[in-house]
């Protein structure tokens, strides 16, 4: 492949001029200056350096601690909300069964931090016939029906517009007398 081996050897024998000794000093100075600049930069914050050093372990621990703190605060806040709901619930149940559950009956004199009932639903999603049975001492059979429902209660704070909804499953057993005719 190489057609010019002699010429290449001659060229290699030709030595390029060496850099001046001053160049070494200048490069050394530039490097020292650069080191100083880097040291000054080290005092500042560098994300890359930060993530490449063992500090990231500390950072991860700190982040985990912050998350735990937030989680603890969140749980505590949730407990407080549960307490508030429990306090509000009796009133809402009372209101819910009242026919005047519509807007006109809402007690507008309530303080701004109180929730007023805003709705209640009961959805029967399953009915099971569990057969006939005789109650103690009774000669009339009773049909035992089990209703599975989902009940939902809603409250609303008229002053803030905040709403609260509680939904839970429930079961109800109903005994219906069966006529012998």
């Amino acid at each position: 492949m190489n057609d010019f081996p002699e010429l290449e050897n001659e060229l290699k024998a030709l030595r390029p001029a060496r850099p001046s000794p001053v160049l070494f000093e200048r490069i050394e100075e530039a490097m020292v200056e650069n080191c100083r600049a880097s040291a000054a930069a080290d005092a500042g914050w560098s994300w890359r350096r930060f993530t490449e050093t063992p500090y990231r372990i500390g950072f991860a621990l700190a982040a985990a601690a912050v998350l735990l703190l937030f989680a603890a605060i969140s749980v505590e806040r949730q407990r407080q909300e549960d307490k508030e709901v429990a306090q509000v619930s009796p009133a809402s149940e009372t209101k819910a069964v009242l026919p005047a559950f519509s807007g006109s009956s809402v007690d507008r004199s309530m303080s701004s931090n109180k929730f007023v009932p805003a709705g209640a639903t009961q959805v029967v999603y399953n009915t099971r016939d569990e057969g006939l049975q005789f109650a103690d001492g009774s000669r009339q059979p009773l049909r035992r029906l089990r209703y599975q429902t989902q009940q939902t209660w809603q409250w609303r704070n008229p002053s803030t517009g905040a709403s609260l909804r509680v939904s839970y499953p429930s079961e109800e057993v109903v005994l219906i007398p069966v006529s012998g005719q």
Partner: protein
Amino acid sequence: MDNIASHENWKSCFSEIGPGLLLFARQWTRSAADAEDIVQEAFVKFWRRNHRINNRALLYATVRSIALDFIRRDKRRARREATVFADADSTVEPQFEWEDEAQSALAAAVSCLPHEQREVLVLKIWNELTFSEIAGALGISQNTAASRYRYALANLKKSLQPQ
């Protein structure tokens, strides 16, 4: 080879590659002082960025990039260099330490080569880069680098033949 930043004796490292680097930088400058400025900037930049010293293609690409910036920074210089490149008689001459007339003639012949061929020749002969590294440094294909090298040798051979 080591990372240049952790190279304790960078001077020995530089004394090994310095002449070749300087010769390469001379392809864009008329004076050795300008070439030294370029080499200094490139070497320190390369060192600062923590590149590995065996990434020679990147080192020479850095020299080339800084040399081109150097020319662009000074438009008057750029015009002068353009004039220089257009005129073969006053082409930028790499400085060599020749010992006899034959070497002097060879150095003169090298300086008369077209710039793109001389660039490849300088990297191949005096910096001992592979064609792959030359291609990386100059941003050309490996085949182009090899072909420019062959043309350079052929032109040299032709110009050195007795008339």
